[in-house]
């Protein structure tokens, strides 16, 4: 990404005409090449490189992951293994078995996540999978936004689990044990939960700003603290444990604090999905239209340069982690008020805090990218249950597909070489000004 790679190598400066020199100076100025920038920290650069790829890379990475998943399904399928023993006397059997395995798996994935075409007679049942996909996507999008926002400031927020747990415990306590009138109860529980997540996230920002502690280490350690703290509360009578029982599980969330269903009781889709749409719009607005978001992006591009420009970088770290924590917290609140309404246990985060990192990567840390990446992962999750129950495909295969997606996204050159895509413009930057590119072309 260094600047001199694009300097014209043809001929020595002496041979250049005066006009060419002027033109080059203009281009250099417009593209910002002539500015003497402070060195960009390595972590900011890595994040920028990963997100530098185009949306096409995301799509191709998903496609490749599905192909690899298919290969794994074939390799682990029993019918294929049985038929391949006599491959040379009747190769057709093996091929048919292979086709059956892959087609069966991916059609089950479709049936479980989009439309159950086996039940077209009953439309209410047939469209249930789509609502399941959206319900599964809800916490992934919320947490994904929190991780993505931190990414845009150059912070790796690995603390999704802790932020979810604290938010869930706070919202769950209010929701289960403090009776209040309808509507108010839900709002209070929601807000208390978001504050819980925000504080747990903001603590990370504060530690980084004040002491320089690295956010990766701090967030991971805070995950453990949150997990054992919530586990302790869940088995302490009078704290979160349901009265009159021994299991480390909370009491049921009161009716007044539950997220109301959007499409009736037959479906799991609830108010949470509306909240993540609102959150997505909010994050989009924050990043692209607000002064605060401008500061966020400036620090993400280069904190040293941002400081020179007069931005209080430390304050930005705290601000972004507060907001990111609240967004991840929304996922935790959704889990208790919308998903485990019968009472929650310490595994309530269901590894969403980590899946959110994948979602943020796949969505290239752009709000709507995260939104659709979340829906894709929600679909994979919803479909995985059908794949397992009807085709006997282990859940691990779906996890492998997800992991392949991350692998291919983290390695754009690999995807490019597989599909023989051209290497992108080395000058490419986030939001490269259009005119700068035009200047290059007209030269």
């Amino acid at each position, binding site marked *: 990404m260094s600047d001199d790679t694009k300097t014209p190598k043809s001929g020595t400066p002496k041979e250049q005409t005066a006009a060419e020199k002027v033109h080059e100076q203009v281009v250099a100025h417009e593209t910002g090449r002539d500015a003497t920038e402070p060195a960009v920290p390595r972590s900011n650069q890595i994040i920028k490189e990963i997100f530098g790829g185009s949306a096409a890379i995301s799509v191709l990475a998903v496609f490749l992951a599905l192909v690899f998943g298919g290969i794994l399904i074939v390799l682990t399928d029993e019918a294929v293994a049985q038929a391949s023993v006599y491959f040379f006397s009747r190769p057709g059997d093996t091929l048919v078995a292979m086709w059956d395995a892959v087609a069966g798996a991916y059609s089950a994935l479709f049936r479980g996540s989009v439309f159950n075409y086996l039940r077209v007679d009953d439309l209410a049942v047939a469209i249930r999978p789509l609502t399941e996909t959206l319900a599964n996507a809800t916490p992934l999008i919320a947490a994904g936004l929190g991780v993505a926002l931190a990414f845009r400031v150059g912070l790796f927020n690995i603390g999704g689990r802790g932020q979810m747990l604290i938010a869930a415990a706070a919202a769950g306590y209010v929701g289960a044990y403090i009776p209040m009138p309808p509507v108010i109860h839900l709002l209070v529980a929601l807000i208390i939960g978001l504050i819980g997540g925000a504080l747990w996230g903001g603590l990370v920002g504060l530690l980084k700003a004040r002491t320089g502690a690295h956010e990766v280490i701090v967030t991971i350690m805070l995950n453990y603290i949150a997990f054992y703290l919530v586990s302790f509360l869940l088995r302490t009578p009078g704290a979160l444990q349901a009265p009159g029982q*021994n299991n480390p599980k909370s009491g049921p969330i009161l009716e007044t604090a539950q997220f109301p269903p959007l499409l009736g009781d037959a479906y799991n889709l609830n108010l949470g999905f509306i909240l993540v749409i609102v959150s997505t719009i909010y994050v989009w607005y924050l990043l692209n239209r607000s002064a605060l978001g401008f500061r966020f992006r400036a620090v993400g591009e280069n904190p040293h340069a941002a400081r020179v420009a007069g931005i209080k970088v430390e304050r930005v770290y705290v601000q972004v982690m507060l907001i990111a924590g609240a967004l991840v917290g929304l996922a935790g609140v959704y889990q208790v008020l919308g998903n485990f309404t019968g009472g929650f246990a310490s*595994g309530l985060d269901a590894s969403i805090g980590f899946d959110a990192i994948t979602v943020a990567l796949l969505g290239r840390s752009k709000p709507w990218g995260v939104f659709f990446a979340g829906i894709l992962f929600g679909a994979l999750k919803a479909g995985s249950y059908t794949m397992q129950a009807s085709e006997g495909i282990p859940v691990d295969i779906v996890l492998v597909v997800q992991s392949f997606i991350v692998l291919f996204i983290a390695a754009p050159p690999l995807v490019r070489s597989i599909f023989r895509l051209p290497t992108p413009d080395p000058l490419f930057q986030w939001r490269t000004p259009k005119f700068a590119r035009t200047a290059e072309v007209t030269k």
Partner: protein
Amino acid sequence: MTITTRKRALGGIALLGASALVLAGCAAAPEETPEETAALDYTPCIVSDAGGWDDKSFNEAALDGMEEAAAELGVEYVAVESADENAYEPNVQQLVDQGCDLIVTVGFLLAEATTNAAAANPDIKFAIIDEFIDAPNVKPIQFNTVEAAFLAGYVAASYSETGVVGTFGGIPIPPVTIFMDGFVQGVEYYNSEKGTSVQALGWDLAGQTGAFTGGFAPGTEALTTAQGLIDQNADVLLPVGGPIYFSAAEAIRDSGRSIALMGVDKDIFVSDPDIADLVLTSVLKNIATAVYDVVTGAATGEFDSAPYVGTLENGGVGIAEFHDFESAVDSELAGEIEALIAGIIDGSIEVTSPASPGQ
């Protein structure tokens, strides 16, 4: 240059693959056989909790019981594994959609999903392990393990030469702490009978707190917890919680002392020959048998919602043989255990735990 190498490498891989296929694919094709029809139109199904099928504990045991029952009945069963807590509800729902006749759910974590599905599908039978659900189509399968663990505590106290025995658990949940309750009570009973003062470490009966590793995975936590007990001179260890006994066995081997290990759930002398030489005995919790009984019973229409509670009396819980330790234990111990079992069954010896079913 690089291209040639890559091509050569790919060629090599292709050749390897092809030869593997040639070697593997030479068998004769089987004759076409007409589709076999299942003798019985009955599909039993089972859902694991997040521990997974290979947890060396109740998920695995429940699946064993299901496998055996399905083989006996000559039917196909469907087993789904839950990757995380979000999977419980959808997994149970999927099995309902698959047309299962009986759905066994493993563990209290699935209680909510089971309750909801049972209420929505009164025609489908359910069974849940280690939890009580009050519904006409749900059979709770529970175990009063405290009775069997009491025997283990007695054996440990009798065997111990240092006068110190120890236990530790995975996570403080009732199916775990019930073992520790029984173990400590057994040691206390031995002391009051024999006038000894054997100490039981790792569990405070009155305060209901003790040593836990924080999870059901073998590893550093389990190893250091076991080492901690060994350092306090314990010479009998009862690790409660699936595979954490691996780490306890490792700690025993590291110490180089003669320390006896006790297993839980199944006879680990039989199931894990690698550590068989360390095993004094095991506290048996016959989940597999209970699942087998419920699955085969439901196939013939014998199903009710009365809780199955495994006790010493009905053989649902018990204590394994001493195997290699037969000669090491007190010669009168076997007889004393027989007497204790009789006493617990007729109620003359009272063994209770806050975690007992129905408490």
